[in-house]
């Protein structure tokens, strides 16, 4: 898959996860890798970049194990970005399905 395209989708997933609640780095990574086959090193640069772009804020909070963890929180700008990405994605995937489902699912016949 095109690297850029994949990154856009992952960006959307990271934003969505953080809309529900603030999370720390590894928590986000393990959440997403439950659903998608992603390597952690693809998620980390996204967190870093979205923070730089002002879509997330970070704060430190002590964990029950003692060490402080960096939590990520979506900002208003991040929310607006999410809405835009989500709309783009919906219209893209809608278009893809319109193409794939043209004439019903009859692909199997082609090679018969």
């Amino acid at each position, binding site marked *: 898959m095109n690297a850029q395209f994949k990154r856009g989708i992952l960006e959307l997933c990271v934003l969505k996860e953080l809309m529900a609640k603030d999370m720390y780095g*590894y928590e986000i990574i393990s959440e997403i890798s439950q659903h998608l086959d992603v390597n952690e090193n693809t998620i980390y640069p996204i967190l870093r970049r979205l923070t*730089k772009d002002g879509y997330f804020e970070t704060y430190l909070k002590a964990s029950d194990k003692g060490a402080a963890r960096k939590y990520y929180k979506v900002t208003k700008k991040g929310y607006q970005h999410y809405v835009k990405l989500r709309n783009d994605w919906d219209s893209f995937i809608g278009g893809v399905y319109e193409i794939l489902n043209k004439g019903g699912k009859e692909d199997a016949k082609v090679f018969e």
Partner: protein
Amino acid sequence: MQKYLSNLEEAMKQEGLSEEVIKEVLSDHEEMITAAMEEGVQEEDLTEKFGNPEDIARAISMDNIEEDTSGEEQGYRLLKAFDLKGEHIEVEGKLLNESISFTRGKGTGIEVFVKDMPKESDYTVKCDGETLTIKRTTKLFFSFGQKQSAKFRINIPANILIKNADINITNGKISMKKLMSQNLKLKTVNGKISLKDMTNDNDHLTSVNGKIKLYDVTANKTFVSQVSGSTKMKNTTVQNEVYIRSVSGDVELKDVTATDIEYHSVSGSLKGKEVYPKTLSLKSVSGDIYIKNSNKEHKIKIKNKQSLSGKITLE
């Protein structure tokens, strides 16, 4: 964990990242790895889980370049902005020791930023809506003490195709990022050429002494010619052929897919990892060639394999 972190630190230093960034990334990773290990992730799985330190360093370094590009805060100032007539542009560039970088911009027109430009009258920067021209109009006389040379940064809108780009620079760097192009003809004598995240048709890259880098590029045909500079290609897919001609420069390929790869060198070496062409042709006089692929199912047809005194290893 310490070993992983020190590898990561080393990789980031190699990429030339700032101390501040290195410190931040290390502390983030220390925290993430600690959390992962608390959940039972083992030391030996760290690379698999968190990725190869080199890849992380590269991803961060690439993101940092991207941050530079928006850059007025880096000392760039907007020189000129142009409206576009159609969906594509032509680019002509002829410079001496200036650097030029193109990237995807957010606006609808072309923006030309500059930095360290002593005299604006030395240059022609114009665009008639279809052709962007950046040229040095005065000759550079041998001048003492003039260490700085101008840097151009050009933003091109996302939907615009670069139909033809013909850029020729003597000592400066040419870089392009996140753009679409049809015919690229980039040439430098001593400067670097770097393409990142590009969708291209035909690439024709020539550098005498500079490095050539292609990361995350999709192209139809790629032709690289170098004398003593080195070439690196990573995560690159070429529909048809990749042709690399080198005199003494070394070539490194990683995750490269193509129909046909042809490598022709005098004394340069070729190192490849996960290189999957349909056909491969290797020729060298004294350079060593070493290619290692993990997918043994993928059969490569060797069209040509010859070296006079170099060693060729394919595994």
